[in-house]
């Protein structure tokens, strides 16, 4: 179940170095949390190919590098390149190689009822941080989340105070530039959306350069009573990027949360999404698209945990795999004994475009309550020949017809992103990708 000891030794040693680099900040609760998490990894090890949750996605030797803390952390932020999102209206935070680029970030006229700050400042300024940071990870532990907790230093803290609606979306834009050296980032985001408040975030990841970038990130979202959150992840890195993205959501009564995960490139991407519906009348939506080619490997593991009655979850993940790309989907729905009257729906549809593409999908229902309506459906196939023929019979070329149908297939997912410019941007990206 665990990886060889040498990895583990590397983790231990890396942590010692990391600790030394922290200077004075070792006495905070955060550091206690780091040590706890380190102990947890040392005990469990990192998941190898025999680990059920990672059987299709083996970071293997790459892990060894990613956790060898020394040497690959760029201490200075390179100047960040322009991104297609720059002109979109909203608050912006730019990170380059895992470090905040304050010169380009723009929080403009952010309401005083909304706090957006660095994790480091939050540790000093937010008295109640201790109650939140790492608490969802504890109920859904994963070796990589622990690894992040042990090593993360950078990240964004967001708090939206009671009954506040953030007027514009917040963009968190990461660019990794590995042209000079490899890049490692363990960043950590935390959002607390208080009662009756609303938040929209677009988190985008770009990368350039021929060296490998390693990202292992954790996001925790607390959706308080009647709060509403939409968080979209745009994973657009290049073919040398390794990414493990852990997103964990905790929802209180009457809250609604939507997580969109769009992966169009990268070398190896693993998304772990966990949503705990811990009170009545909660609603969770999970939408995902993996439209990949080359040798890209994308693995989406989602879990929704219905703990209380009358909650609703809806999940739609779609994949298009070309060339030698490899898609993995695993969707778990848990309905606990107390969670009567749960409605949970899950759908996963896949299209393989090449004889060398692979999909492994495993929808999974675990139900302990009886008065529930749960279903999952999952298909793997190709474009509908009848539909293709219909389009061609109307004079559309086969290539164009194919592109239209693929676009429609992927469009189902993108349609759920409510931020107009982002949706349009993605639609263009998808069109370009399909037509090329």
């Amino acid at each position: 179940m665990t990886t060889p000891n040498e990895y583990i030794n590397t983790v231990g040693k890396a942590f010692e170095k990391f600790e030394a680099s922290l200077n004075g900040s070792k006495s905070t609760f955060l550091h206690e949390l780091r040590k706890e998490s380190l102990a947890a990894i040392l005990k469990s090890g990192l998941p190898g190919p025999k680990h059920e949750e990672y059987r299709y996605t083996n970071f293997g030797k790459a892990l060894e590098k990613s956790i060898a803390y020394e040497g690959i952390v760029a201490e200075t932020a390179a100047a960040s390149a322009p991104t297609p999102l720059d002109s979109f209206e909203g608050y912006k935070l730019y990170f380059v190689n895992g470090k905040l680029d304050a010169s380009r970030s723009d929080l403009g006229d952010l309401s005083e009822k909304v706090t957006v700050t660095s994790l480091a400042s939050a540790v000093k300024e937010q008295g109640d941080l201790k109650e939140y940071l790492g608490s969802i990870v504890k109920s859904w532990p994963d070796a990589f989340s622990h690894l992040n907790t042990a090593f993360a230093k950078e990240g964004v803290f967001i708090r939206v105070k009671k009954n506040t609606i953030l007027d514009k979306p917040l963009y968190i834009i990461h660019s990794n530039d590995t042209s000079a050296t490899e890049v490692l980032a363990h960043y950590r985001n935390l959002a607390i959306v208080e009662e009756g408040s609303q938040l929209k975030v677009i988190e985008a990841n770009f990368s350039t350069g021929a060296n490998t970038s390693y990202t292992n990130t954790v996001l925790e979202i607390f959706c308080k009573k009647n709060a509403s959150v939409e968080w979209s992840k745009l994973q657009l890195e290049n073919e040398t990027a390794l990414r493990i993205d852990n997103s964990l959501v905790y929802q209180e009564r009457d809250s609604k949360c939507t997580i969109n995960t769009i992966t169009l490139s990268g070398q190896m991407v693993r998304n772990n999404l966990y949503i705990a519906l811990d009170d009545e009348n909660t609603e969770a939506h999970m939408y995902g698209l993996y439209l990949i080619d080359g040798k890209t490997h994308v693995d989406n593991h989602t879990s929704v945990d219905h703990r209380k009655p009358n909650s609703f979850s809806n999940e739609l993940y779609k994949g298009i795999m070309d060339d030698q790309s490899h898609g993995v989907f695993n969707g778990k729905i848990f309905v606990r004994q107390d969670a009567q009257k749960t409605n949970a729906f899950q759908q996963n549809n896949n299209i393989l475009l090449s004889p060398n593409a692979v999909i492994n999908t495993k929808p999974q229902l675990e139900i302990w309550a009886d008065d529930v309506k749960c279903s999952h459906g999952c298909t793997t196939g190709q474009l509908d020949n009848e539909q293709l023929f219909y389009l061609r019979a109307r004079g559309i070329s086969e290539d164009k017809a194919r592109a239209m149908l693929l676009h429609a297939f992927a469009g189902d997912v993108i349609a759920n992103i409510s931020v107009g410019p982002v949706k349009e941007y993605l639609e263009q990206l998808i069109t370009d990708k399909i037509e090329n």
Partner: protein
Amino acid sequence: MSKDNQILEELTKSDYKYGFHSDIETESAPKGLNEDIVRFISAKKEEPEWMLEWRLSAYRHWLTLKEPTWQNVTFPEINYQDIIFYAAPKQKISPKSLDEVDPELRATFEKLGISFDEQKRLTGVAVDAVLDSVSVATTFKSKLGELGIIFCSFSEAVREHPELVKKYIGSVVPVNDNYFSALNSAVFSDGSFCYIPKGVRCPMELSTYFRINAMNTGQFERTLIVAEEGSYVSYLEGCTAPMRDENQLHAAVVEIFAAKDAEVKYSTVQNWYPGSKEGKGGIYNFVTKRGLCSGDGSKISWTQVETGSAVTWKYPSCILKGDNSIGEFYSVAVTNNYQQADTGTKMIHIGKNTRSRIVSKGISAGKSQNSYRGQVKVMKRAEGARNYSQCDSLLLGDKCGAHTFPYIDVENPLAIVEHEATTSKIGEDQIFYCNQRGIATEDAVALIVNGFAKEVMNQLPMEFAVEAQKLLAISLEGSVG
């Protein structure tokens, strides 16, 4: 036989003669498992050397394995050194009439509608002359013999048809396949062997015969079915009557080999002792069943109705190697009280245009846990492969669990795989509607459950479908109220 071999054989024989001199005369092996026990079993069955070697290699492999832990069931650790691995069928003290049989058991027979004659056979009551099971069996056998069909006990097959057994044993479930199949390969007690020659359509359900002789197959049963080109056979294992076996661990192996255009239909009704209402005792049923659609156009269809056993762990599978071959899996698994079932299938699509269909209906009641676990794997070469899976769970009461673990792995872009699953409960409005027509709640549940499972029940041979329906109702007794 050359002289050297003769000497060798004598030497080896005398070897275990010394080791078990006194025991050879007795009916049982001592507790525990080691190479000598394997030799003892083989000797007891007067098996040829190759069979012994086969068993020993299985045993040696077993030693290197660990009991699997991935399934969604929990049970106390099994002490393999505390099990008697061989006991010849004992001449039990037969009850003289049905009046001496446990009334609870008899009540169940009544509910199932099993005839008196059959009840007598099942409980071991001395059978009267008119219905002599041996003569019935013989009649069947001669009829089958005319067609060249071989249908006999596994031991007999090893003696009478060694070339066939040697060729096919372990060809579908290799010795090193898994922990329990390795164990079975080492110590299997007996079982059935069935061979359908080329182009022959077996004219009867092999169930009837089997049923008569099913009683003393032991806890490590082994079945091998070989269907030659263009042949057909329908086979039924088990019966609806409750089985009160003393042996807690059952680790059977079933292998099916289907040549070109051959079709094998295998139906199982499993109603072993599920343990008490409080979850004490009950059988651990760890079975490896696999069929190989070896030839083009072959078809293997599994149908199972699982109501018994405390813990069930079984995945009747099809390896679809031949082009255009077909695999089917129809399953109803009922769990009540503290039963646990982790069952499903594997469909491995290797050949082109292979098709598979999975219909699984899980019903959980009481404090039981019912899991469907399945895999549909489409290999690179399996162009045009198609699978359709439907896994439905029905929950009765709020203390039980229903779980679905389907693995879908596709490596060919021209394959179509569809999977659907639902979980629901019996609706109160459905029960009320039945009540209003005068049907008591418990009967209403039985009616609805049978409706839920109908698609699978329809696959059973007619004579068993009726009993199996009643069996579902009996298994769920006391689960609603």
